[in-house]
């Protein structure tokens, strides 16, 4: 399951995208995130609870500011680079 965390508003679109089918729940991205915006969460899929990485609730509505300092336009951000399963990507299109 691919989850788009973030939003599109008048200033552009900002998403951190996590693929929970690929995510192993290792938690390395959580440790690497300089903004502490990621955490491990329980996700319900195929009638099972699986532990996966997620953008924490408090940052979802202000992701433009929380994640902006990592320069996600380049995709060379700590969470994306550290993920061995390549489960994380970003879409960052400020207008």
């Amino acid at each position, binding site marked *: *399951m*691919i*989850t*788009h965390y973030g*939003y*599109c*508003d*008048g200033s552009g*679109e900002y*998403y951190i995208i996590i693929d929970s089918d690929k995510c192993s729940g290792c938690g390395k991205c959580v440790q690497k995130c300089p903004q502490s915006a990621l955490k491990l969460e329980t996700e*319900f*899929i*195929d*009638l099972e609870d699986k532990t996966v990485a997620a953008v924490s609730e408090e940052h*979802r*509505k202000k992701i433009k500011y929380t994640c902006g300092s990592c320069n996600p336009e380049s995709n060379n951000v700590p969470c994306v680079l550290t993920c061995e399963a390549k489960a994380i990507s970003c*879409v960052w299109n400020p207008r």
Partner: protein
Amino acid sequence: MSKPKGKEFWRWQEYHRIMPGKKWSSKDIITAGVDVGSVGSKAAIMVNGEAYSWGITRTGSNSPESANKALDYALEDTGLKVSDLKYIVGTGYGRVNVPMANKAITEIACHAKGANYIWGPTVRTVLDVGGQDIKAIRIDETGRVVSFLMNDKCAAGTGRGMEVFADLLQIPIEQIGEISLKVEKEPEPVSCTCVAFAKTEAMGLLRKGWSREKVLAAYTRAMAVRMANLINRVGLEKELVVTGGQSKNIGIVSRIEAILGVKTLPMPNWRDEGSLDPMVAGALGAASLAKALYEKAQKR
């Protein structure tokens, strides 16, 4: 503009339904899904995985109370008691506050399953327009979520926004979709879909001499553009369906179809006895997952 005393244009109909001709016995697997949304609370009862009854009420300030109210409404006149329910799944905005639920599941998974139940295995994209957020969900033929996107940052383009407009323009909420289509030429969408600012903009347009229909068309258009953007972000795949309260808004649905260039699968006419209601898709999905979870627990 003076408002007739006591008339609440935003107020939508609360109702409950038992599917005609359906029966239950104590041997059946009876499950429930309770979907406490930001604006509406829905509860659905399933007998052996088939829709049996449901109730839709307005969500109050107290989530557990709203959950109880919706479930009681769904059980009304069925002869069933809460203790007859083998498994209850809570979902929606207030899902953690559904006291009687055996498990809480996100509304994403429930709407996916519910859309699969209502329209069948050909559904691939679900747009759920709720009271306070919009979700675009891609699913597979079993109703499993493949990809999703939720915009709950602001109330723009949601049911709550429509309620505000119904009140502002003094048009009953049920008629708002049809009236928005009564324009000769589709106007430019309003520049701002923010509910608070759109109200100001709408007042300005009315003062400029725009008709109510034209203002509504411009606002509905702006909402539809926003929704189409979300669908394009998760990737549009046919068939497309709309769930949630705004699925009943023909002005929204027909504009999304026009913008994306695809037809949605036909909406069940919820006013007909014996017809399913896309507004209860989340609750139906929750009840369906409740059955699966109950059976899984039995096998252990």
